[in-house]
C-alpha cells in the first residue's frame, strides 16, 4: 500500500449517482462521524501511523464538525467486513478503508449501506458510494532516486520492499530509473520481506542490503527500522534514508508524515456539507504547502466499473 501523502483529489463525473452523502442539512448540528479501518497498529510508524496522523489532523482542524473512530490491526480478509459494518452501524457516514486488501470487502459493505460513503485507499473498484484514492508515490520515489543517483558513491542502491505488488514495483522502477538518469551505472539491490511490518526483519534486511554494497537504502515497509539501521551504520558516508512515508534525511519516528492530504480533503468536503463525488482521486505530494496538508485537485476520471 501505499502511502500517501496525499493530496487530493478529485472527482468528476457522475454526479447522478453520487449520494448526497451528507446532505446539506443538519450538518450544523450533527457532527460527521468518520470511521477508519487500519491495517496495522497506529504505532507502526508507517502506513497506519501516517493515516492516523491524518485522522488526528482532521480532528484538530475540523474539531467541531467531525468525530472520528478507528479500528486497528484489521486483517485483509473477510474478517474486515464486520469491522466496516460495525462502523457503519455506529453511525459513520464516511469510512476510510486504508489498504488495498480491503477492496472487495469495501465494495460489499458499501452495497449494504448505500447512505454511507466509503473511501478506499489504493484500490481500483468503484461503486456509487465507493471512491478510491491514492498518491502519486512514484513521483516522490523518482525524487528519491534522483538524489540517490547523485549521491551514491558505490552506485549500488538498496530498496527494502514489502510485497512484490504493483504499487511497490512502481516505486522501485521510478526510483531506479530516476537514479539511472543521474548515474547510468546505478544498480539496485532489492529485498522483499513479505510483510508490511516486521521491525526485526526490516532491520536485518537493511543490514543485508548494506552488506550487499548499497550505500543508500530506501524502504517501502512500514516501520522506520531501515532508517534507524542505516542511520546507525555510520561507516556509510551517506545515511540512507527515506521511505514512502516522507522524504527526510533524519528519519526517526517524529518525522513521518503522510496520508493527510486526501483524507483531509475528502473529510473537509463532507463536513462542509458539500457533495462528495465518487471517483478516483490521486494526490501529489506538494511540500510547498507544508507537505502533508496541501491538496490539489488533479484529475478525475470516472470509471464504469463497479464493484
Amino acid at each position, binding site marked *: 500500500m501505499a502511502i500517501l501523502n496525499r493530496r487530493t483529489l478529485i472527482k468528476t463525473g457522475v454526479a447522478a449517482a453520487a449520494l448526497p452523502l451528507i446532505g446539506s442539512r443538519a450538518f450544523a448540528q450533527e457532527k460527521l462521524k468518520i470511521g477508519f479501518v487500519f491495517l496495522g497498529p497506529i504505532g507502526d510508524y508507517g502506513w497506519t501511523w501516517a493515516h492516523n496522523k491524518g485522522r488526528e489532523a482532521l480532528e484538530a482542524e475540523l474539531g467541531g464538525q467531525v468525530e472520528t473512530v478507528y479500528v486497528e490491526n484489521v486483517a485483509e480478509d473477510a474478517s474486515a467486513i464486520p469491522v466496516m459494518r460495525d462502523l457503519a452501524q455506529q453511525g459513520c457516514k464516511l469510512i476510510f478503508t486504508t489498504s488495498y486488501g480491503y477492496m472487495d470487502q469495501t465494495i460489499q459493505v458499501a452495497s449494504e449501506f448505500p447512505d454511507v460513503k466509503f473511501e478506499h485507499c489504493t484500490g481500483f473498484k468503484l461503486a456509487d458510494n465507493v471512491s478510491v484514492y491514492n498518491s502519486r508515490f512514484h513521483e516522490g520515489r523518482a525524487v528519491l532516486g534522483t538524489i540517490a543517483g547523485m549521491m551514491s558513491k558505490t552506485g549500488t542502491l538498496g530498496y527494502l520492499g514489502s510485497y512484490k505488488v504493483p504499487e511497490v514495483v512502481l516505486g522501485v522502477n521510478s526510483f531506479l530509473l530516476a537514479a539511472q538518469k543521474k548515474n547510468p551505472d546505478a544498480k539496485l539491490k532489492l529485498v522483499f520481506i513479505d510483510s508490511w511490518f516486521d521491525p526485526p526483519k526490516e532491520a536485518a534486511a537493511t543490514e543485508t542490503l548494506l*552488506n550487499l554494497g548499497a550505500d543508500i537504502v530506501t524502504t517501502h515497509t512500514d516501520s522506520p527500522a531501515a532508517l*534507524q539501521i542505516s542511520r546507525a551504520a555510520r561507516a556509510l558516508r551517506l545515511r540512507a534514508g527515506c521511505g514512502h512515508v516522507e522524504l527526510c534525511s533524519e528519519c526517526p519516528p517524529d518525522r513521518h508524515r503522510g496520508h493527510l492530504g486526501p483524507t483531509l480533503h475528502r473529510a473537509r468536503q463532507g463536513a462542509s456539507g458539500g457533495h462528495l463525488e465518487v471517483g478516483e482521486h490521486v494526490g501529489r505530494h506538494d511540500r510547498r504547502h507544508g507537505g502533508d496538508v496541501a491538496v490539489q485537485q488533479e484529475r478525475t476520471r470516472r470509471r464504469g466499473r463497479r464493484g
Partner: protein
Amino acid sequence: MNWDFLILAIITIVGISTPILLAGLGELVVEKSGILNLGVEGMMLVGAISGFAINVYSGNPWVGVAGAAGAGALSGLLFGFFVLTLRSNQVATGLALTIFGTGLSSLIGLSFVGRIVPQFGSVFPPELARDPVLKVVFGYSPIVYFALLMVVLVAWFLKSTRSGLILRAVGENDLSAHSIGYNVIGVRYAAIAFGGAMAGIGGAYFSLVITPMWAERMTAGRGWIALALVVFASWKAPRLLAGAYFFGILMWLELNAKAGGLSFIPGAQAIPSQFWAAMPYVMTVVVLTLISMRNRAGLNAPACLGKPFLPAT
C-alpha cells in the same frame, strides 16, 4: 566475496541472533529446572515496552535494560505463581502468558508511540567500534557482549556450581530432590524469574537497540524461535550459543534469498526464502527426534520437563 561483505554479514547475524540467544538462555535455565514456559514471547514484549518506557523516563538505556529485566522477571513470576503455587497446567498457562504479555505491552505502549529514547553508546573506543575491520569484534551494542557473558556464566553455573547442580537435580527428578530435602518450588521460582529477566532483556534489545522505538508486537515471534533454540541446543548453554548464531545464519539466508543476492551460493536463488525460514523449526524437530531415539543416556533433556510436581502428601 570480500572481507567487507563477510564482516557486515557477521554483524547482521550477531544482531539478529542476540535476542533469541538471550531469551533462549533464560528459557534454558527454566527448562533445566523442569518447567516449560511457553510465555517467552509475552515476556519479551513486556520487556520491550518496559525497557523502552523506563528508558524514556530515566533517560538512561542501562536503567531501561534493568527495568526490562525486572519486568520480564515479574511476568515470569506471575507464571510461576500459577504453575508452581497453584499447580496449574504449564502449557496453557504459558500460552496465556504470551497472550497476556502481548495485550499488556500494547496497552502500556499506547502512550509511548513516537517517543525518542537515548541510545547505548559503544562500550569500546569509537575508533575500534567504527574501524572497518575491527568493528566485527568491537562494534556491537553492549547487550551483545552481555549476552555472550551470560552464556559463559550460565554454562559455568549449570556445570560447576552446587546451585546449578541442585537446579539440574530438580529438573531431572523433582521427587527425589524433594525427598533429599531441596526446595523444589523455590528453585523453580528462581529459575523462572531468571528466565523472565533474560526474555525481558531480549525484548529490550528490540526496543532499545535494533529499532529504538516502541511498536506493537515488535518482537515478531522471536520468542517462539527461542523456544525452538533451547531444544535445538539440546539444553546445553554452549550449544545454545552456536545454535543461536546458526539460526541467525538461517534468518540471514532467508533475507538473502529474498534479495536475490545469493550468487555466492550456487543455486540458492532457486530455493524459496520460506525454506530457510522453516529450517530452524524443521531442524529442531529433527534434533528432538534424534535425542529421543537414542537412549536418554548422556542427554540433557530434563526428565521432569513440563510435568507437574506432585509430592506425596
